[in-house]
């Protein structure tokens, strides 16, 4: 559905997107995650043909965003971050106008508008002026607009920002349901949202993709947390010799104790082995436990990697 190849976008001397490449296949719900200013919106604007890339190539449904812009735009539904709408129009007028622009055939238009209004639960405000709607309703009108022409690809830029918790839950539900028929690229910096809605996560920071994996794989990673009283360097060296250890990260010592996070191969639980080896060396253990690595850890790790 989406093929992005070494995409670069710079604004003057600032490089907003720096040689990113990724692919999204049909039917995936991809969470586009990153801190503010990471380049999420810029990437989405390139994909929706609003701004062009400085270099590199992006294709949507096989059409190049630069050369076949109109064809690309026919196939996407886009919800921009600030949800700009014409405040002086009524909800149904606006959707009717957008449906005409997006080439929804006349015969299907009113049934399609009815369907999206019901789906996004704005049907009770059909005759209200958009300018008088609350933020949550505006967001839903924007979403209704995005799915109006039944596009193959939905690009949603922070669709739940500014909503109250109930609206957030409802919006996520709608997105999840939409994901059954559409490919969705969703940007956000709310981590639980990604965990609830998406199948795949891309973390972007400083214009580069730091991580791109299935959510299931990201969740699985476990780490063993160890606090032990002993010479830090010796303990470190010893831990690395244990079979099945993928890596040892020394943490800040606490109360004179050496603290480590041990990553293991294949998420093997090495707690017993570790305690045995530490005990053999005569170092007292204060804490030893297995911690699931959360998406948040991975996110911060990926984001920090850049700053170092």
């Amino acid at each position: 559905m989406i093929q992005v190849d070494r995409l670069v976008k710079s604004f003057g001397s600032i490089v907003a997107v720096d040689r990113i490449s990724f692919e999204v296949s049909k039917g995936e719900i991809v969470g586009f995650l990153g801190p503010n200013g990471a380049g999420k919106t810029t990437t989405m604007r390139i994909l929706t043909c609003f701004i062009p890339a400085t270099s590199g190539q992006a294709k949507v449904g096989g059409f190049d965003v630069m050369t076949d812009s109109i064809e690309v735009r026919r196939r996407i539904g886009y919800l921009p971050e600030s949800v700009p709408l014409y405040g002086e129009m009524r909800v149904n007028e606006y959707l009717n106008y957008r449906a005409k622009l997006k080439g929804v055939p006349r015969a299907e238009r009113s049934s399609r508008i009815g369907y999206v209004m019901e789906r996004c639960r704005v049907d009770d405000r059909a005759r209200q002026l958009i300018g008088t709607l609350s933020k949550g309703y505006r967001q839903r009108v924007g979403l209704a607009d995005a799915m109006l022409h039944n596009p193959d690809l939905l690009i949603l830029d922070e669709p739940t920002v500014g909503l109250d918790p109930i609206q957030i839950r409802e919006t996520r539900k709608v997105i999840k349901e939409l994901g059954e028929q559409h490919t969705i690229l969703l940007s956000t910096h709310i981590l639980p949202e990604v965990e609830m809605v998406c199948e795949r996560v891309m973390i972007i920071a400083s214009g580069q993709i730091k991580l791109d994996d299935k959510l299931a794989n990201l969740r699985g990673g476990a780490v063993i947390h160890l606090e032990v009283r002993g010479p830090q360097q010796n303990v470190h060296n010893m831990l690395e010799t244990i079979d099945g250890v993928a890596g040892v990260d020394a943490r800040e010592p606490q109360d004179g104790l050496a603290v480590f996070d041990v990553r293991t191969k294949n998420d093997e639980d090495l707690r017993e082995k570790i305690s045995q080896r530490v005990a053999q060396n005569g170092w007292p253990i204060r804490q030893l436990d297995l911690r699931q690595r959360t998406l948040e850890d991975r996110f911060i790790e990926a984001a920090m990697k850049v700053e170092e």
Partner: protein
Amino acid sequence: MKNLWTLTQREIGGFFLSPIAYMVLIGMLAVSCLNFWFLLTELSELRIEAAGEASPMVRYVAANLWFWLSMLIMVPVATMRLIAEEKRSGTIEVLMTAPVTDLEVVLSKFIGCVAFYCTMWTPSVIFLVVLRQYGNFEFDWWPLYAVYLGVFTVGLMFLSVGLFYSSLTRNQIVAAILTFATVLIMFSTFLIHWYLERNPSWSAWAPPIKYSAVLLHLIDFGTGKMEVKYLAFHLSVMVFMLFLTTKIVEARKWR
């Protein structure tokens, strides 16, 4: 181009959904009334017209101070929000990511404001019809057709200039002031023309300057000197400005 009509409908709707449109229309109605009153006063006095002078009818339509004051205000007000407002509110992002071309967007905005401009002029025309029907005053329609055609093409030119300025900025006030200044300059060049014509060493410059002295075009049209070159000038400025506007809208893709 099939989206053009949809977009234009929204543009026209956009005009008449804003209070500014009604203020402008009321203002224009007041100006038309005032001019009509002046016309009636003038017609009821017996007076011999000098050759080459604008007739009271032409003065009623275009060769009067009120006409120019209203042009100076109406044109910027009608055009300032067209693109600047879309940029400021961000709706340009939704608009440009729909399957529409840049040219369609620019043309629809232009047609929208031309429609508004024509609406502004209807009272002035209706008054003339009333004068002929109920005032039993047999005047010649033809010079008036020519003047109204001139008012229309001059309007096209000014509106395209306003649209262009509106595409340059996201601030409506900036767009309005630039448009105002341009219309003012094109209006006041008739003074320069007047000076050049009377100064033998500079008189060769008078004809080129006359192209921008829009007031003189309208007076010429009204006195039977309907020169196609001035119409062509108005229309070519319009085409050029619309072309530039399309390029400016497109220019977001060059950065």
